[in-house]
C-alpha cells in the first residue's frame, strides 16, 4: 500500500441507490481522504444528498430506498450485517441544510449525543465536553452565559454552529455536511467556512454545496455529480482551473445547473 492509499478514509464502490423504481445513483466509485474536505457539487437533483446519506446510512429510514454496492470506512464495510447503525452514526456525524437544533437548551443540545452514548462519566466531564464542543464550533463566546436557554432562540448562523457543536460532541471521525450554509448570510457563512477549515485537521469532512466559490474556498477535493453519475473528481484546484470533462466545465462556469 502506498501512503496515498493509507490515507483513504471512505471508499465507495459501485454505489447505486433506487427510490422505488427510480434510480438516483448509478455506480459511484469515490475515495475520500482523511483530514481533507471533499466537496460534492452538481445541479439540483443529481443525487448529492442521496450519496451523502449513504455514508451514514440515513437512507435506511426512507421508505422504498434501496442501496446497492459497497461503502467502506477505514476498510470496514458499513453495510455488512455486523455494523451497528447507531454506532456508525456516532462515528459519522451529519450537519443538515437547515439548522435543526432540538427544542431544548443549548447545553442539552450539545450534551445529548454524549449522554446517549455514555461518553461522560460525570457531570463535570459532560460540562467539559459541552464547553470544548462549543469552543470548537466557535460558539462558546456568544453563548457561555446562557447555556440553559433554548437553542431555538439563537440566530440562524448560531443555530447552525450549535448543530456543528452537537455533531462533534460525540467525537465522530467523519462529518457530513449537506449545504450547511444555504440558509445563512455571507457573514455567518464565512464563520462556518473558517470553522470547517479548522475542523479539517481532526475530521474527514464531506460537504455538499451549491456555491462554486465555497467549494473552491473550503475543499481540497471536489466531486462533480450529474444525473446520478459521478462525472469527475479530483483536486479542487485542478477541477476549477482545468476540468477534464465538458459537463464539469459548463457547470463550473455557470452554463448549466
Amino acid at each position, binding site marked *: 500500500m502506498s501512503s496515498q492509499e493509507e490515507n483513504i478514509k471512505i471508499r465507495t464502490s459501485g454505489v447505486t441507490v433506487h427510490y422505488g423504481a427510480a434510480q438516483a445513483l448509478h455506480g459511484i466509485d469515490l475515495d475520500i481522504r482523511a483530514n481533507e474536505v471533499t466537496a460534492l457539487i452538481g445541479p439540483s437533483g443529481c443525487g448529492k444528498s442521496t450519496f451523502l446519506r449513504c455514508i451514514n446510512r440515513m437512507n435506511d429510514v426512507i421508505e422504498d430506498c434501496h442501496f446497492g454496492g459497497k461503502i467502506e470506512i477505514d476498510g470496514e464495510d458499513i453495510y455488512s450485517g455486523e455494523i451497528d447503525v*447507531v454506532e456508525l*452514526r456516532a462515528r459519522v456525524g451529519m450537519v*443538515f441544510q*437547515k439548522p*435543526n437544533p432540538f*427544542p*431544548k437548551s443549548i447545553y442539552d443540545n450539545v450534551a445529548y*449525543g454524549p449522554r446517549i452514548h455514555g461518553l461522560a462519566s460525570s457531570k463535570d466531564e459532560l460540562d467539559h465536553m459541552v464547553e470544548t464542543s462549543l469552543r470548537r464550533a466557535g460558539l462558546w463566546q456568544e453563548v457561555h452565559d446562557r447555556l440553559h436557554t433554548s437553542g431555538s432562540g439563537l440566530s440562524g448562523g448560531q443555530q447552525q454552529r450549535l448543530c456543528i457543536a452537537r455533531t462533534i460532541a460525540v467525537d465522530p471521525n467523519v462529518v457530513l455536511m449537506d449545504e450547511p450554509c444555504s440558509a445563512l448570510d455571507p457573514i455567518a457563512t464565512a464563520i462556518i467556512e473558517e470553522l470547517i477549515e479548522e475542523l479539517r485537521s481532526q475530521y474527514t469532512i464531506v460537504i455538499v454545496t451549491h456555491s462554486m466559490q465555497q467549494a473552491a474556498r473550503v475543499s481540497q477535493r471536489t466531486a462533480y455529480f450529474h444525473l446520478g453519475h459521478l462525472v469527475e473528481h479530483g483536486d479542487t484546484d485542478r477541477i476549477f482551473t482545468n476540468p477534464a470533462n465538458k459537463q464539469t466545465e459548463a457547470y463550473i462556469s455557470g452554463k448549466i445547473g
Partner: protein
Amino acid sequence: MTDRGPQKNDPIRAARQAQRLKKRYRKERRFRAFGMSAVLLATGILAFLMTSIVYTSIPAFTHHNLTLDVTIIAEEVDILRDDQGLVTNVDANWLGFVRTALRDSFPEVTSRRDKRDLYKLLSIGAPDAVRDAVQADPNLIGQTIQVRLPLSDDIDLVMKGLIDRNLPETDRLVSDRELAWLDKFIAEQRVSENFAIQLFANGDSREPEMAGLKGALMGSLLTMLVTLLISFPLGVLAAVYLQEMAPKNRLTQIIEVNINNLAAVPSIVFGLLGLAVFISFFQLPRSAPLVGGMVLALMTLPTIIIATRASLASVPPSIRQAAMGVGASRLQVIMHHVLPLAMPGILTGTIIGLAQAAGETAPLLMIGMMAFIVDTPTDVTSKATVLPAQIYMWANNPERAFVARTSAGIVVLLSFLLLVNGLAIYFRKRFEKRW
C-alpha cells in the same frame, strides 16, 4: 406592446375596473356579514341554552327546612358501645320523634287521616337529620333539641313560588290545610331556605329533595379513571407503533382503515360488545365502573390513536434527522424527541376523547349502569351509575321538583367537563413551557 399603452389610460376601461373593484369589495363585505351572522347565531343559541338550563337549575341548589323542637326520649334510644365504653352507634325510632314534634305543634289535629297529611309536610329524609344530630353528639339524648328538618318537595316548591298558592285547591298539589300549617310555621319563623347540601352529599333517591349526585359523580370519576388508565397507554402505544415503527404493508393498512372506521361506530355497539364480552364471557360484574370504563375505553381508543398519530406526524422530520444524526436509536428518537414534542397534541386528543366518554350514556345502558343506585360506589367493582345517566333518569321522574334537579345535574356535568378541560389546558401549557 404598442396598442397596450394607450389602453391603460382608456377612461372607459378605468371606469370598468373601478366598478369591478367595488363589486369585489361588496362581495367581501357580504361574505363577512354572512360569517358574522353564523357566529352570532351559533353563540346565541348556545347562550340561550345555557341561560335556560342554569335558570331552571337555580331552585335545586337550595332547599327549605323546618326548625322543630324534637325531644329525644332517652329510654327509647339504643346505645351501642365498644370495649372502652365509647358510643359506636345509636338507634331509635327517629321517625317517631319527628312525628311527635309535629303533633305537638298542632294539638288540634287528631284524626288518623289528618295526622298523615300533617306528617307529609316533612321530607322522608327528616328522621335522618335527627339521627345525624344525635349520632354526632350522643349527649343530646334525653334533651329537647332544635333540629333543621327538610320540608317535602311540594312544600319546598310552594316556598319557592313554583307552585301557585292562588290556584283553586283542586288544581294544586298542596291542600289549603297544608298551606295553613305551613303559614303558621312561617309566622313562627321556623322555615328557612338553606343550601341544598343533599344535592352533593346524597346518592340517588325517589324523593327529589333527598336525591343527590354524589353517587353519580363518584361513578363518573371511577369510570373515567378506568377509561383513562386503559385507553391512554394503549392508544399512545398503538399510535406510536403504527406511526413510527410498523412496516407499511397490507396488514397495517387494513388496521389503519379499521381504526378510522372504529371512530365512526355508534357508541351503543360498544355497549353491546361490553355486554357480550366483559359481562357474559368474562363474568365481570354488571353496573360496575370497571366494565363501564372498559367499554368507554374501547370507544375512546380510536380518538386517542388518531390524535396521537396526527401529532406524531406533525413533529418536524428535521428533529428526527438531527437525533438520528448523532446516533440515537429509533426508540431514543421517539422517546427523547418525538413523543415529548407530540405530547400537547396527544393530551388534547385524550381530553377530547375523555370528555366525549364522560357524556356518554348509550353504551352504559347496555351494561346496566343506567340504574337506580342509592349507594355511592367505593371502588370500580361496586354498582354505580354515571352523571349523564343520572340526569336522564331524573328527567324521567314525574315529580315537579326533579325538573330543577335535572338541570342542576346538567350544570354539574358541564362544570365537571369544564374542570377537566381546564386541567388539560393547564397540563398542556406546562408541557409546552418546557420549551
